[in-house]
């Protein structure tokens, strides 16, 4: 039996000109939570919808447990559960009715009561979908994915627009599914979500994977585990970044608005040297902070842009 999800050299061109996905290959192992991380428009949704068999690829191959979508699509659909990015479920059906409807499509669905319980929707079982909060609606969307007792769960931007508590609730649901042996593929543009939830990640930009690995691994590849961010008064850019690059322990340097960001392996060596350098140039240190490097830093280092431009 093949791995749950595998694709090679996936391409998708819309209307013969817009290349949403440009040669993307992935292999996701059983029991893994895999994340596609990238900014809006990177091709994440196109990729996940091709893997879900909802969208046809222009070229490339997809295998779900070793089977292609042309072979036996109904059987593959029994194995997967999906939450699309923006499905508006019928507002005038109750939560229970909605789950029952989706349950009826599968050969051996789970009992509705179990799904309600697991997704913390029991209290809302008889409320109309239109009356639910954003977080409850999103949990219901995941409930419709889980009721078929799937082996793979596809989640497209599952927590976009949710409040922090609802996001954490959803993360717990994903972890519980994984704990039972399920495989998860999700897309997100939240780096904290990717970092906390995913075992492995692929960073996607302009339709290709630009980095792949476990979150610590990716951060490792950045060079430094720490980021030192500072701002100086009268900071003329004339000094350039190479001044800071030469400081001890600095792996890479970049501008971030008016501040300077240093990726640093050993902050206790870099910071004293930094203070001395600022003094020597007769500048004033306006602001100085250090933090752990994040996936955001990885992304910025790779692309020169932020994940979220807003």
């Amino acid at each position: 039996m093949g791995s749950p999800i595998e694709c090679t050299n996936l391409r998708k061109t819309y209307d013969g000109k817009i290349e949403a996905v440009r040669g993307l290959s992935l292999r996701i192992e059983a029991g893994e939570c895999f994340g596609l991380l990238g900014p809006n428009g990177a091709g994440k949704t196109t990729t996940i919808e091709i893997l879900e068999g909802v969208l046809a690829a222009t070229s490339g191959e997809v295998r779900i447990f070793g089977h292609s979508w042309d072979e036996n699509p109904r059987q593959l659909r029994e194995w997967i559960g999906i939450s699309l990015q923006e499905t508006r479920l019928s507002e005038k059906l109750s939560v229970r009715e909605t789950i029952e409807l989706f349950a009826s499509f599968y050969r051996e669905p789970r009992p509705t009561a179990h799904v309600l319980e697991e997704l913390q929707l029991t209290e809302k079982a008889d409320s109309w979908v239109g009356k639910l909060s954003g977080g409850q609606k999103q949990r219901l969307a995941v409930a419709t994915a889980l009721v078929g007792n799937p082996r793979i769960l596809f989640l497209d931007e599952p927590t976009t627009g949710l409040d922090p508590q609802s996001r954490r609730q959803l993360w717990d649901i994903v972890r519980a599914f994984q704990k039972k042996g399920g495989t998860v593929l999700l897309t997100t543009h939240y780096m904290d979500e990717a970092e906390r939830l995913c075992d492995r990640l692929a960073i996607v930009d302009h339709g290709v994977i630009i980095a792949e690995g476990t979150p610590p691994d990716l951060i490792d590849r950045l060079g430094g585990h720490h980021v030192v961010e500072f701002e100086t008064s009268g900071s003329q850019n004339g000094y350039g970044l190479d001044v800071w690059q030469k400081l001890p322990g600095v792996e890479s340097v970049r501008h971030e608005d008016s501040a300077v960001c240093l990726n640093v392996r050993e902050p206790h060596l870099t910071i004293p040297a930094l203070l001395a350098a600022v003094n020597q140039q007769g500048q004033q240190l306006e602001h100085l902070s250090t933090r752990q490097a994040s996936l955001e830093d990885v992304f910025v280092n790779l692309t020169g842009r932020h994940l979220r431009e807003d």
Partner: protein
Amino acid sequence: MPTETTTPQTPEVQDRAPVPAAPARVNGRWTGYRQLLWVRLLELKREPEIVFWVFGFPLLLSLGLGIAFRNKPVDTTSVAVVAGNDAAKTMTMLRGSSGHSVIHAAVLEREAALKGFHFGKFDLVVEPNADGSYTYYYDPARPESVLSRAEIDAALQAAAGRKDILATSTQASSEPGSRYIDFLIPGLIGMSLMNSGMWGIGFSLVDMRQRKLMKRFVATPMRRSDFLLAVMSSRLVLMVIEVGLLLVFGMLVFHMPVAGSIMSVVVLGSIGAVAFGGVGLLTACRAQKVESVSGLINLVMMPMWIFSGVFFPYEHFPTMAQPFIKVLPLTALNDALRATILEGASLASQSGRLLVLVLWGGLSFLLALRWFRWT
């Protein structure tokens, strides 16, 4: 096309679910279909607007039109007599005539009389001239005006001493079955089947497509044919209610006789509902937005509202147009409904019209399936 020859036909046998199976319930072949149909009916019941437009509106329309046309005394004519020396004499002559019960005459100044005539308040203006003759002002394009001239002329001539040489007698015929309301109700049933087929299927499918709900459905093992079948079946369920309501309403309120068998009417209704379901499906097969499908639906229905004889017989249109009018699905449905309900015609005698309906429904359905866009 499977490239690996080792792939078994039913791969699930060899795969053990990594997720521990919960106490299983096993769904049968038709569970999905039944649930889709049930949910559609539930949703409909919870949309008061839809219930009104599908069931209430045709009833109100038939009530309004039925009353409006029933209460209009068939043969009365309103005339204005221009004030002057002979006005009083003219009034006496009219009152004394044999047709006085259907003549409403009033004396007015010339200007007021003509104004009333132009606004349709009077069918005719009668002006007594100084030499004892009369001038009639009438509109040859208005049937009631033409009638009125003949009526008044006959009354005045008789009062002036003309003798009728030929003896005639008349008999009024406004038996149930031949009145306007009897013509109207089968037409309204047809129109209602068209409206709800087009809106109920066309609009709701595009709405589901726009909400990405259809995409979500096809991402499950749901059979696409089940989905379309459920949509069509829900139309049939509603059809029985729609047709039943209008028929019962017509029978109770307007004492409309139903000459044909109820079974024939139901069969006709089903064929009509499915035909318009097919047309609705075709109209909605590509549209991505409800706004664009609304325009399309109106475009498709407009010619049939006008030409298919819902409110008045289509024989009024030029002979040249008749063959085109007769192949419209609503024309075929209305004609067949009228023949069955009013004349008791058998279904077999309506086979030509049924064929028109079946062709419209069948061809649209096939084309729709070919072009249908799920996402």
